[in-house]
């Protein structure tokens, strides 16, 4: 019965045109738009040259000075830092010799007179620096002895920026959009998870009622439906990932199989959350569908699908959201695959994702375990 149900549920899933659009076509269309928007940056050599930035010190800041000093001395630095006083820096900015002015005072600020990729990259660098700096401040307040280690960690992070800079052809800043795209494709599993719940509950659908009346244990029927949902979603993630890697030829680095594995874990998380939403309450299928789509897109928004540095902002303001947002976790996993040789942090994130998935799937099963209903 398990395999019989699995087969037909899978067939039913992959033939649903509306779902197929969201699961398979939409990520590809969005990926194509991303590529059209950013893709040329991979091809233009001149875009990969150092970005000139003026730096003015209104106040001494040893840490920041150390960071940009280290970046400046690197062979493949992302930025060309030019020290200047305020007047000179403004003249350079107006003439177009630099793309922005970093002013170091009580706060570190950025001045630009136009918007563009270069300005966004400078801003992204500063946001990342500020975020790390905040962490150092917090550590020094609690444990001043650990300050040296914190500064060291900050340098390691700037190394990351350097190593993944456009100069070596691996433009991490834009890769994040494609990582978030794969994340979104995985989390759209909420849609299939939702239908698995609805199609197995007697009080939510006529098909669910018919299944409840069959001489089968509900848990087995639901489990096979969920597995069918996961397989459907896996197909979607494989398609999107393959499109990004092999058609758009976006180099996400790392082990390709691990990227697919990450997508599979993400798909499982998506299906689990959708199953939970589908099992909760007696709202109509349309309302639950809207909730699922909104939740998946909102999670992706928070992880930076629409606004590149959103995850950094959240890390500063409310880091716990990044710890529980499945989209942020999946994109982190993909990011760690790119930047790290080992899997320590990847495994931590994978474990967190599995715990979240199991939480939702258990919750869903607890809500669907009842045998009879008060209302139909």
């Amino acid at each position, binding site marked *: *019965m398990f395999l*019989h*149900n699995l087969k*037909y549920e899978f*067939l*039913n*899933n992959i*033939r*649903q045109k509306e779902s197929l659009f969201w699961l398979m076509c939409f990520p590809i269309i969005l990926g194509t738009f991303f590529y059209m928007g950013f893709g040329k940056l991979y091809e233009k050599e001149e875009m990969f040259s150092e970005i000139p930035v003026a730096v003015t010190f209104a106040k001494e800041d040893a840490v920041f000075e150390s960071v940009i000093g280290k970046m400046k001395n690197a062979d493949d630095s992302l930025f060309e830092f030019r020290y200047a006083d305020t007047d000179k820096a403004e003249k350079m900015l107006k003439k177009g010799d630099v793309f922005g002015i970093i002013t170091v005072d009580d706060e570190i600020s950025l001045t630009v007179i136009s918007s563009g990729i270069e300005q966004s990259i400078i801003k992204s660098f500063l946001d990342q620096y500020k975020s790390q700096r905040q962490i150092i401040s917090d550590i020094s307040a609690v444990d001043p002895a650990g300050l040296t280690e914190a500064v060291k960690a900050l340098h390691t992070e700037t190394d990351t920026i350097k190593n993944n800079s456009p100069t070596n052809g691996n433009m991490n800043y834009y890769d994040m959009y494609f990582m978030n795209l794969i994340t979104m494709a995985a989390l759209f599993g909420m849609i299939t998870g939702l239908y698995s719940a609805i*199609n197995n509950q*007697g009080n939510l*659908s*006529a*098909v669910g*009622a*018919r*299944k*409840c*009346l*069959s*001489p*089968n*244990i509900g848990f087995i*029927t639901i489990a096979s439906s969920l597995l069918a949902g996961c397989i459907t979603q896996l197909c979607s993630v494989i398609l999107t990932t393959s499109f990004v890697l092999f058609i758009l030829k976006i180099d996400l680095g790392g082990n390709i199989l691990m990227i697919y594995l990450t997508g599979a874990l993400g798909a499982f998380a998506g299906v689990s959350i959708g199953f939970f939403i589908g099992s909760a309450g007696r709202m109509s299928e349309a309302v639950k569908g809207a909730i699922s789509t909104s939740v998946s897109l909102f999670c992706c928004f928070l992880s930076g699908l629409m606004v590149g540095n959103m995850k950094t902002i959240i890390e500063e303001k409310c880091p716990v959201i990044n710890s529980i947002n499945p989209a942020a976790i999946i994109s982190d996993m993909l990011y760690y695959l790119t930047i790290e040789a080992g899997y320590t942090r990847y495994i931590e994130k994978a474990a967190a994702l599995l715990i979240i998935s199991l939480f939702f799937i258990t919750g869903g099963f607890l809500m669907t375990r009842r*045998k*009879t*209903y*008060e*209302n*139909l």
Partner: protein
Amino acid sequence: MSDTIVKIENLVKRYKELTALDHLNIEIREGEIFGLLGPNGSGKTTAINCLLSLLNYDKGNIEIFGKKMTPTSYDIKQQIGVIMQDVAVLEELTVFENIDFFCGLYIKDKKKRKQYVQDAIEFTGLEDFVKFYPKKLSGGLLRRLNIACGIAHKPRLIILDEPTVAVDPQSRNRILEGIQELNHNGATIIYTSHYMEEVEQICTRIAIIDKGTNIAIGTKDELKKMIHNTETITIEITEPDSRILSKINSLKHVYNTAFSDGLLTVKCSGGAHNLIDVLAIFKENDISFGRVYSELPTLNDVFLEITGKEMRDTEVQ
């Protein structure tokens, strides 16, 4: 007497303040086509859902095949086929796949299942549509598919809840004939409907339900014998004078006359020649008349006389 196959005792189901089933008692015997007749909202579907352990209930006892019915009575469920009011098929599976899918929830053996699916397709006349998707089927064909999915595993007890709602007359007749054929093949049928004609046409025994309780139960003849009316005569005439009405009223078996919209209605209780007697009065007084109808009592008359209201008046259109 045949074995009792379904026994519902003192069934009570409440939705907060509303009592949907009020001490409902029904016994259904093997081999019957048992009709549950009642207006919309009378509790028919609730009774079926409680019977199938889909709905919980507040009080009462339900036995099927001599065993207490519970949500985990898989041995009982194995022998039941259900055709619900709402069409329950998967939209993205073809006709064949849908029947095979639902049959497969009951029949594990592939070879046997294949034969059963083929039988169900032939039985419902869907041979030409096996590769069609449900959305491509007409309302009648969709209902037939719904039935095929419910009966493909050859159940011993088949429950049909308003299977002909929104179905064209041709498909309706086919469905009703099919139900009788299923019964001839050995299945016991429970058929709920608010269409009196259908129930009267196919059911061997009928329970009339109103406000969650059975107000009458028996064969259609037994039900009709429960009421005063045995014949209703309707005659097209112009305005009748009181003298004629008085003469008709004085006939032995006539107990009520009424004139409305050019139609004189005469209700009789007993007697074999009421129509001849009424027409004789018209002839004696040289009164011309148009068309004449004589109708035996319907289940609506039964419902009307017992509850004081027309069954159709209570339907939600």
